[in-house]
């Protein structure tokens, strides 16, 4: 009767040693390069030099085949590195999307030429990607995208607009989901294809959008009759929906869904460790239990992906539970502060807290809203 299984996966000595290696590397690199840890760093903190250093260490493109410049390591090894980067607040935003999902899409669906050209650069931390899914009129309803790729004698002509494209201004490529056939209302998931679009091509326009925290990390990306070669098609024509569903599982299941603001928690504990009330200690116990459970779920999904299973629904669980956890975390930290007024907190903690508080509404929007996650779960349960 078990509906959703999260098999137990043990972290072996090899993984434990890897954790220690990453920790040492981060300590040294942060010190020598004067890197300041940041919350939500996978979204807000880009540092191409740091990404290159990770590539040099062999910690990007880890699961990709060696013949394309990958490392042929396991998804569990990648998971451990990802966790350590997140808890350290490392500046990983530049390469994050390429390493998390775009590279895997190319390995899975790309041509030999695409793999040979792009994967080595992702693995060396020198090629960055943006996501080309949402549009001004297509948010949660992804199948309604209107960006159109018209077949030409030489390839394709791409017209349309993508929105909320995080890091597009720093990226080299975007994987664009576009219609290659007119919308069939009876079969809305058909007639979609994915394209590998070089963002330096003529006709591509990237316009920054300032978010409510005054940061410009996401963009509107406009394609004005952009000419694409035939080999810009990623995977099979008309199979874009099926391909994008797998990509979303990679996007949703990782530890960034519940460790984005870990650095705030860690700093808070350092400052309040000896000032916590019984109520605060009790709330902390709850956080520990929920956080450790989320880690076990996400680690299990990394193993499922490694084993070529399709944990699409399990990914929706992690995304939704992770979002709920982080939203509650902000509120819980307020409750745990033992009646010590905010004004009296250290300036660094106040800064982290303010950033987290302002950024938290985005958690349950980016990568699919809570409502969409619950819809996915309901569908799997046969309710719709």
């Amino acid at each position, binding site marked *: *009767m*078990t*509906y*959703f*299984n*999260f098999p*137990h996966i*043990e*972290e072996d000595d090899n993984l*434990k040693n890897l*954790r220690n290696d990453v920790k040492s590397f981060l300590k040294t690199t942060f010190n020598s390069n004067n890197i300041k840890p940041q919350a939500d760093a996978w979204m807000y903190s880009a540092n191409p030099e740091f990404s290159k250093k990770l590539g040099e260490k062999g910690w990007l493109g880890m699961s990709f085949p060696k013949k394309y410049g990958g490392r042929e390591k396991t998804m569990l090894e990648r998971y451990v590195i990802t966790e350590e980067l997140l*808890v350290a607040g490392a500046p990983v935003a530049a390469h994050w999307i390429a390493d998390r999902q775009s590279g895997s899409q190319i390995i899975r669906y790309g041509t030999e030429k695409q793999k040979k050209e792009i994967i080595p650069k992702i693995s060396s931390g020198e090629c960055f990607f943006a996501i080309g899914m949402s549009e001004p009129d297509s948010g949660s309803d992804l199948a309604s995208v209107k960006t159109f790729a018209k077949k030409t004698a030489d390839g394709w002509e791409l017209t349309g607009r993508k929105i909320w494209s995080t890091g597009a201004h720093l990226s080299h490529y975007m994987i664009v989901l576009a219609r290659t056939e007119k919308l069939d209302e009876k079969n809305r998931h058909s007639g979609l294809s994915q394209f590998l679009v070089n963002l330096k091509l003529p006709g591509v326009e990237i316009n920054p959008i300032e978010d409510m925290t005054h940061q410009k990390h996401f963009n509107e990306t406009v394609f004005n009759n952009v000419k694409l070669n035939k080999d810009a098609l990623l995977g099979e024509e008309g199979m874009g929906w099926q391909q994008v569903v797998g990509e979303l599982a990679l996007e949703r299941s990782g530890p960034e869904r519940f460790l984005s603001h*870990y650095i705030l*928690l*860690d700093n808070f*504990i*350092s400052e309040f*460790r000896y000032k*916590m009330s*019984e109520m*605060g*200690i*009790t*709330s*902390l*116990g*709850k956080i*520990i*239990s*929920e*956080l*450790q*459970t*989320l*880690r*076990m*779920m996400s680690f*299990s999904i990394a193993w499922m992906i490694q084993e070529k299973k399709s944990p699409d629904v*399990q990914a929706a*669980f992690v995304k*939704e*539970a992770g979002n709920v956890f982080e939203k509650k975390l902000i509120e819980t930290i307020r409750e745990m502060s033992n009646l010590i007024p905010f004004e009296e907190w250290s300036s660094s903690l106040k800064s982290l807290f303010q950033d987290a508080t302002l950024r938290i509404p985005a958690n349950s929007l980016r990568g699919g809203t809570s409502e969409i*996650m*619950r*819809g996915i*779960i*309901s569908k799997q*349960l*046969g*309710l*719709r």
Partner: protein
Amino acid sequence: MKDEVKIILDICDKILLKNVDHHLRLNLEPNSTQFKTLKDEIISSELTKLLVKEDLGGAGMTLNDIIPIVQLSAQYGTPIPFIETIISNFLLSELNIKPENDFITLTNKTENIIIKKDKISGNFKSIPYLNLAEKILVETEIKNQKYIILFKKGGKLKLQKNFLSEPKFDLDAAELEIISMMEKPEQMDIQNLLINVRSIQSFGAMEKILKLCIEYCSQRKQFGRTLSKFQMIQNHISEIALEVAASGASLSTLKNNNKNFYNLKNTAIPKIRTGIASGKVIALSHQVHGAMGFTKEYELSYFTKALNSWRNEFGNEIYWQNILGKLFLNQNKNLWEFLNH
């Protein structure tokens, strides 16, 4: 899952499917034919000796192996001291004592214990299913030494008020016959073991509740549509599913090594997570079932009462959150180190 566990699970499933229903839960009498048949089948199939060492006549399975069996038993809402007997026989086996061919129940809540010439007297609290068991296993302390004592049931049983239809009893015992008495080894933490059993059972019961919600809402129509088509209902049920999934994942702390069942941190994490989940699942499942779920006749309430009983045993999740929070703070590690060790 090991092949031998799959086989045992299959045997267990067949017995419970055939014998356990809501009628049994509502009419649980030691002398009823339905109870006697179920008991005979469980005892004769040796399911109560799964954790007993092979040289003592058991199956030699590990605590890890029986997680799915405890879960299955809870999914069926099995209203007998089946799991209590498995655990009691396990503890006896760990002390190199042969298992019993009867139902045994157990408690660690004891007062005023006096041992005199192979007889035990004292007050024993909160003993589940004492009316259906023949023997009692207790952990108790006498003159700063902890003991495990197995003795024959007797004396007057006092039924306690409890959330669950699961009967719990207090017993004032006077000179009952001791079958075995051994010093308790230091590493044997019975309370943690029992808490973990409850966490696994809670997960199983929540899985059953999720199933009931899906079935009920897929059949019942209101406003010309099945309830399952209403977005609000889908939202409630997906939240239940989320809590069930998280509860199952939290049990990961117990797996791989049997010592994890005795470890405070590994015990606290699922105890807290399943406790939190239970609260949400109870409220949401009753909401989606409407008045039907509030009736004695429909089986939902059996499972929600079970969750209420288990989540309040041995300290509720708030109590355990405090223990876990202090455990971390007292170790003088940063949180990430604490989580990874």
